[in-house]
């Protein structure tokens, strides 16, 4: 497997520019936002879009941005938000007392029932996924 930094390509193909990718992601998100939770269509759509992005990301089909060779000591700051989130998610999950002390998922579920919020969440997920594919 070639190293990611060796795969980095400076030139950008037309279909990889934001003017193309953003509308495509918006359309995919609007479709995803219409699919209800626990439905077979939502499962298939999530698996299909995610699978396609992984297929693109694991091959040499999309040029990647150069990755840093090392992280400075400042990277340790990222432990703080991860630890706070991890502690609350862990404790709420282990105690499992439902709405009294809810997990992040349980808090997010009612918000994601709204189609507009669901579409926005779909867009955030797909845009971040595309960002990972390009890295």
């Amino acid at each position, binding site marked *: *497997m070639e*190293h*990611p*930094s060796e795969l980095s390509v400076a030139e950008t193909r037309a279909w990889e520019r934001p003017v193309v990718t953003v509308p495509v992601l918006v359309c995919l998100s609007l479709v*995803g936002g219409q*699919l209800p*939770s*626990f439905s077979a269509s*939502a*499962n298939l*759509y*999530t*698996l299909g*879009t*995610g*699978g396609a*992005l*992984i297929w693109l*990301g*694991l091959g040499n089909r999309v040029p990647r*941005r150069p*990755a*840093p060779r*090392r*992280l*400075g*000591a*400042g*990277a340790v*700051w*990222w432990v*703080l*938000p991860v630890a*706070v*989130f991890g*502690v*609350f*998610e862990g404790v*709420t999950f282990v105690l499992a*007392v439902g*709405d*009294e*002390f*809810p*997990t*992040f*998922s349980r*808090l*997010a579920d009612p918000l*994601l029932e709204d189609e507009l919020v*669901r579409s926005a*969440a*779909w867009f955030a*997920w797909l845009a*971040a*996924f595309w*960002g*990972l594919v390009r*890295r």
Partner: protein
Amino acid sequence: MMRALAIGGFLTALALFAAVEWAARRPGSRIPSLADVCAYVMRYEVGPVPVGRIGLFGFWWWLGWHFLAR
């Protein structure tokens, strides 16, 4: 009371994510952005297998399925 604590805790975590990312994007910052941290993790390979890349893609795929499909 406990519900408010949980909501406050998660909002604090999200605010900390935003604050560290903001600090990372300041000119001359020594803090790497979240994208740089992810890119660094994705460089990890075991032999010919891009373990970091597969792991991060898998995690993100699962996260989307968890929140958007169920």
